[in-house]
């Protein structure tokens, strides 16, 4: 069965430290992978996507993600966390049959 897993409900990181939000997936064929962010009292916003090509993709607000086909992972990263990065992050996958699956979300807390 196709699925997306975000194994951590919450991640706490000190401001200025690097952050990683994990995502693994299981889909048939080549997936399209996305990260979205939901700030408090604001709608979901697109951060970045992987379609094909370079495994490291860069997105908004200094975020990047690395596609690892052998580990079926698409972890979100940022070299230096800001307090304003505190939000709910969703990983999503879309397969070639256009099934769209979102992870349950990971709440990121950046501690000042």
């Amino acid at each position, binding site marked *: 069965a196709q699925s997306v897993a975000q194994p951590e409900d919450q991640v706490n990181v000190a401001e200025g430290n690097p952050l990683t939000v994990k995502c693994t997936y299981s889909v048939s064929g080549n997936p399209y992978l996305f990260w*979205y962010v939901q700030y408090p009292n604001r709608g*979901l916003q*697109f951060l970045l*996507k992987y379609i094909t090509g370079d495994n490291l993709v860069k997105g908004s607000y200094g975020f990047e993600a690395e596609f690892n086909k052998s580990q079926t992972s698409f972890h979100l990263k940022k070299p230096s966390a800001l307090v304003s990065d505190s939000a709910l992050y969703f990983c999503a996958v*879309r397969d*070639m049959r256009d099934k*769209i699956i979102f992870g349950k979300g990971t709440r990121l807390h950046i501690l000042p």
Partner: protein
Amino acid sequence: EAGVTQSPTHLIKTRGQQATLRCSPISGHTSVYWYQQALGLGLQFLLWYDEGEERNRGNFPPRFSGRQFPNYSSELNVNALELEDSALYLCASSLAGTSGSSYNEQFFGPGTRLTVL
């Protein structure tokens, strides 16, 4: 540029009633998606419309239905409401994509909070 808009912001219904939620996509976007965001369950994909046609649907019963109008706005109908239908319903739009190659990112609206009593 106006974003995705949804109405109403809040909707309160009783069990067994019907709810109608509306969505207007970003100008130029022909694809509209509906999601249910229930507490602790993340986003669950409901429906995808493109060019007036239903392209795909998630694992929801038939009482969840919708349509897309010629101006690409969309409506989600939930019949025979149940208590567990209480959730935030999100609409998103994107540029068109051919089925099987739809990798365009989605732009989300603020949602409609549906409460079923």
